[in-house]
């Protein structure tokens, strides 16, 4: 296992110390494992809290700041955070207008956020939760834990964050978050597996000429293992899976072409070229786009494409100023 770390058990606290040192605009409580906007709580503003296992950086700690999240709770690598963290983060950002929990649809996240929300209600902090489940790779959700929350989490956090920054109320912010989720779909492909530091060996094995179609962001295997294909073919498979589930034709979209952590930027741009062509060929107008490693899976080589069918309001909120370690525009 070749990693640029100290002891495997110290990866998360070490990284949090690094995040704190690198971003004075954040208040990082390493022991409590929460990342909070230095200017929180903002009275009169709906607080936005998210979190999940570590290993997806910059998600979520890298999205804390003006116009996006107010706090993030990083669990151990690929392990949901515990209720204590989520409650501490919720309390830290409660400005009297309630707190929205952005929860990716994994059993661990759902249960731990659920217990934390109960703890917050006990302290008279109103909490609403939005479930992010944009991953089309999980087809049949009646006989599964439901679709996973992946790339669209970034869309939800940015757009809901902008609305909260503009002073909207909790139910309005929650509704916008749910709308973004419902209008978004993602699909991922892995060229390599990744290794949880504590485990010391890859979560799954992939042959030199193999790839996993429909992978999640916890290094878990996907829908199907097939022969490695070209960037154009992989992008075609990904966008076709999304398009089959939610037709994109005739719509204006926001597209995220996302490296999974081990894929270099030059390859992500090769993929974006294919995505742009595919979408144009299918009568889809790309009005906003983002290329880069924003929602990762440790050092996994691979790609995830997320698409959101925009409305004028959502576009305006996407364009609103944001200042976080990973996303910054307009200020």
């Amino acid at each position, binding site marked *: 296992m070749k990693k640029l770390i100290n002891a495997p058990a110290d990866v998360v606290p070490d990284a949090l110390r690094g995040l704190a040192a690198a971003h004075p605009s954040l208040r990082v409580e390493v022991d409590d494992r929460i990342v909070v906007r230095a200017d929180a709580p903002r009275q009169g503003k709906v607080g936005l809290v998210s979190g999940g*296992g570590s290993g997806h950086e910059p998600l979520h700690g890298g999205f804390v700041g003006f116009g996006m999240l107010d706090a993030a709770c990083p*669990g*151990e*690598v*690929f*392990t*949901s*955070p*515990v*209720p*204590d963290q989520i409650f501490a983060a919720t309390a830290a950002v409660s400005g009297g207008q309630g707190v929205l929990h952005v929860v990716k649809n*994994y*059993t*661990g996240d759902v*249960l*731990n956020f*659920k*217990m934390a929300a109960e703890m917050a209600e006990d302290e008279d902090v109103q909490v609403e939760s939005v479930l992010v489940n944009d991953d089309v*790779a*999980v*087809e*049949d959700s009646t*006989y*599964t*834990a439901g679709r*996973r929350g992946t790339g669209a989490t970034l869309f939800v956090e940015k757009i809901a964050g902008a609305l909260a920054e503009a002073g909207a109320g909790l139910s309005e912010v929650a509704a916008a978050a749910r709308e973004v989720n419902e209008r978004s779909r993602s699909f991922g492909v892995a060229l390599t597996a990744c290794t*949880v530091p*504590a*485990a010391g*060996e890859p*979560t*799954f094995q992939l042959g030199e000429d193999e790839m996993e179609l429909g992978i*999640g962001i*916890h*290094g*878990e*295997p*996907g*829908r199907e293992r097939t022969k490695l294909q070209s960037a154009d073919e992989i992008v075609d498979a990904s966008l076709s899976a999304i398009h089959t589930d939610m037709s994109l034709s005739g719509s204006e979209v926001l597209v995220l072409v996302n490296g999974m952590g081990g894929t270099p930027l030059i390859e992500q741009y090769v993929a974006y070229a294919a995505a742009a062509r595919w979408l144009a060929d299918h009568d889809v107008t790309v009005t906003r786009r983002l290329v880069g490693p924003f929602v990762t899976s440790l050092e996994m080589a691979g790609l995830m494409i997320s698409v959101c069918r925009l409305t004028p309001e959502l576009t305006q909120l996407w364009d609103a100023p944001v200042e976080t370690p990973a996303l910054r525009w307009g200020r």
Partner: protein
Amino acid sequence: MDPVLDMAAWIRHAAELVAADADRLTRLDAEIGDGDHGHNLNRGFTAAVAALPDSGPPGKILMAAGRAIVSKTGGASGPLYGTALRRAGKALGDAETVDAAALGAALRAALEGVQELGQAAAGDKTMVDALIPAVAAYDAAASDGIAAATRATAEAAAKGAEETIPLQARKGRASYLGPRSIGHEDPGASSTALILRALAEVAAS
């Protein structure tokens, strides 16, 4: 007369077994999950041991252990095992000792807590597939005393865990694999068997 069942000893022994078996549990979770179950549980039970009160009724001991597991394990198994122990503790109430009937009620309360929280049924390839046969086995053998009943419970749980191998997961992370989850033992069912083995071994000693 049943031996005095020491709940703190159970938690400590369970923690030992989990620590010794963490890598195997993690490898199971790597096959159909995300490769962290053993480490999650190890972290949780280590915290549970540290949180054990020096004295107090068995019920309070289990609730303290449960709270620690919720607040330190993380992942899906944290809330589930935490809730199971807290419900079991609550069922034991303030009684100073644990008799066979009380232990049965506690185990059943644990099962209910897990199913209520996780909404998993038999056959979903989760820890519930070890807990359901375990609780049934306990009830069937309760009249033979705690030692015998807990041994039957542990054996049923182990059998239940093994019987998850052919199942297709319908809950938790493994469910994303659909048919590809078939042929692998569920890590949570396996750890439930381990924890109930610890109970049987404490009850037998």
